[in-house]
């Protein structure tokens, strides 16, 4: 199986879709000649030209809004919002327009729009370039939200997002771009709404997203040394959510830690915890633990950033709390 970085995997999916389908085009700030601020779209301009790989003004409302219009008119645009912090500027278009047209029209319209964005701490960008805001969008009926954590997942999920007839927001994570992983020879779509058991275990389930999947695997390794068998499950898609898989894992292990980089308060983990306590109440042998960023904006100084953002040790500590160690 070939090995790709997460960045290459995103590019691979975009390239494949652009090649396969005239109705697919990509647009965003600095994505053409520059290849995107994260280098994801490098090379696409040369292959597909400026009409289909469109540099946009710094204009998040219009980028997303134009994507909505093109999608309603029958195309499958993929727009890039450079940082999810800037997604806030386009929230009106995402929340009131993209998410609602199908519903308000009584099913007459569809909005097959894909919004790619990225964020994440760990490189001292400060408070306006590293937030994790995925939970906001999971709150909006009509949107689909994915947060893939590996090259294989991001490639397969992005493909499914492009070919989904609904607006899908795909959250990528800055620190994941250089992560390498094996991917199938042939691009295989990964359906939205399917979780993945990343590591099997019997004592505690860790439900993790994005970079916390990797940190949770580290924690699981460490826990194993202490005789605790940790199962790591990545929902991959936050909406729709594979509740069945999460509940099944928790029914197996009876203990659960939910880990994400976003702040814990009203984070995605809050919803997962609610789902689990309801569907697996009688299987829980310990309080549901949540791991997330502390409730603070991201500070610039690396020591402060590191303190706020959850690390593998935080996951490990939560795992141990569930088993009373």
């Amino acid at each position, binding site marked *: 199986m070939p090995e790709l970085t997460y960045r290459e995997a995103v590019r691979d999916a975009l390239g494949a879709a652009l090649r396969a389908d005239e109705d697919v085009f990509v647009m965003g700030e600095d994505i053409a000649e520059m290849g995107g601020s994260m280098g994801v779209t490098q090379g696409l301009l040369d292959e597909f030209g400026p009409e289909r790989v469109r540099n946009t003004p710094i204009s998040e409302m219009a980028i997303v809004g134009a994507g909505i219009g093109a999608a309603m008119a029958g195309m499958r645009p993929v727009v890039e919002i450079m940082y999810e912090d800037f997604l806030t500027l386009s929230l009106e278009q995402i929340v009131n327009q993209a998410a609602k047209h199908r519903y308000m029209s009584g099913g007459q319209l569809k909005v097959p729009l894909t919004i790619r964005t990225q964020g994440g701490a760990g490189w001292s960008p400060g408070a306006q370039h590293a937030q994790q805001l995925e939970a906001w969008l999971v709150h909006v009926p009509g949107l689909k939200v994915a947060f893939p954590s590996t090259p294989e997942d991001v490639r397969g999920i992005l493909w499914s997002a492009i070919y989904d007839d609904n607006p899908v927001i795909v959250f990528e994570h800055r620190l994941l771009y250089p992560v390498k992983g094996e991917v199938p020879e042939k691009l295989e779509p990964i359906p939205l709404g399917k979780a993945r058991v990343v590591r099997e275990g019997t004592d505690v389930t860790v439900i993790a997203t994005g970079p916390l999947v990797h940190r949770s695997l580290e924690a699981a390794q460490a826990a194993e040394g202490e005789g605790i068998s940790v199962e790591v499950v990545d929902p991959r898609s936050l909406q729709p959510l594979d509740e069945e898989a999460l509940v099944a894992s928790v029914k197996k292990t*009876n203990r659960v830690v939910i880990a994400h980089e976003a702040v814990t308060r009203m984070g995605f983990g809050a919803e997962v915890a609610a789902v689990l306590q309801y569907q697996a*109440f*009688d*299987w*829980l*042998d*310990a*309080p549901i633990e949540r791991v997330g960023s502390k409730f603070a904006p991201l500070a610039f100084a690396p020591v402060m950033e590191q303190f706020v953002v959850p690390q593998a040790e935080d996951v490990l500590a939560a795992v141990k*709390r569930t088993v*009373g*160690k």
Partner: protein
Amino acid sequence: MANEVKLPRLGQGMESGTVTRWLKSEGDQVEKGEPLYEIDTDKVTQEVESDFAGVLLRIALAEGEAPVGQTIAWIGEPGEEAPAEASKPAPVSEPVPGTEVPGTEVRPVPATASTSAAANGGRIKASPLARRLARERGIDLASLRGTGPEGRIVAEDVERGAVTAPAPAAAPVPVGEVESIPLTNIRKTIARRLTAAWQAPVFQLTRSADMTRANELVAKARELHPDVRVTVTDLLAKVCAVALQRHRNVNVAYTEDALLRFPTANVGIAVAAPQGLVVPVLRSVERLSLAEVAGARAEVVDRARENKLTAQDLDGGTFTISNLGMYGIEQFVAVLNPPQAAILAVGATEDRAVVVDGEVVVRPMMTMTLTVDHRAVDGADGADFLRTVKQLLEEPALAL
């Protein structure tokens, strides 16, 4: 500022430890990581290494028990003054046991680390999974000790508590049809608890008491309090409670990690209720007058017979009396009522020929047998307790 050497938590559930020996003396130079003192926990005696480098300024606890977190010494710069007062430990968890006696304080017994307990303000702290398992298996959570975080009863505790019943003996060939009577919950509870009791290594002690004065006292009490019918059982409860206060090593409960020694005597009275055996509890009996005991007993026994007992009526006993005297039973052995460490089986008071001062005389005698959990109480302690019970029955004025 001198560094405080605090009693460490060396294992899950450890609330206190006993310092047995210091390996350094006051004034000695100590390196970080160097063995400093020895501590006894429930598991082992172990050396504890110093977290600090410096001079051992003062030892606050040369030997003995202290709760986790208590300052037991100071290490600082040469010539530095150690504070005079040891700081109190921050509460590390709620030391409330599962077999909690409401409104009373329970202290862990020295030299054994205790678990935190599962009950909290009357509510038993148990995980949802543990609750479900207990429900499915008919296990009373109150009978379990929590080993989870903060003393929570977790699934494992229920599994441990759910002891499989012994294999049934070959059934005799029945005459006529075998009736299958579904087990009621109370029957299941009786079966489970008594089976659990059977797991305990127990011993029995038997003594007889001359009930002459006890009978006189009961008769007198009935005259004084015609509204409540005082019985020998009431006097027994009172006497046992007083004896338990004098022999607190018997007023205990055995748990996996700790002996729980109770500050008050909550005496359960075994009652043959229509629905089966129940043991309503009379609380702090040592503080009650005989008439009050009788009143309280009459009230719960009446309710037991009307099947109107609440869970609270049955909770929190520290000792049990089972009296089959009214059935003419001379003496018998009662099965332990766990987690209590002792139960007193009381037989009928009957005139027997006894030798007093070298003469054979007839006295109203009552034989009682104490069943004791040997994990919690040693033979001599049990014997001492039973002797006190006998003395108090023979001189009941001493108990009142």
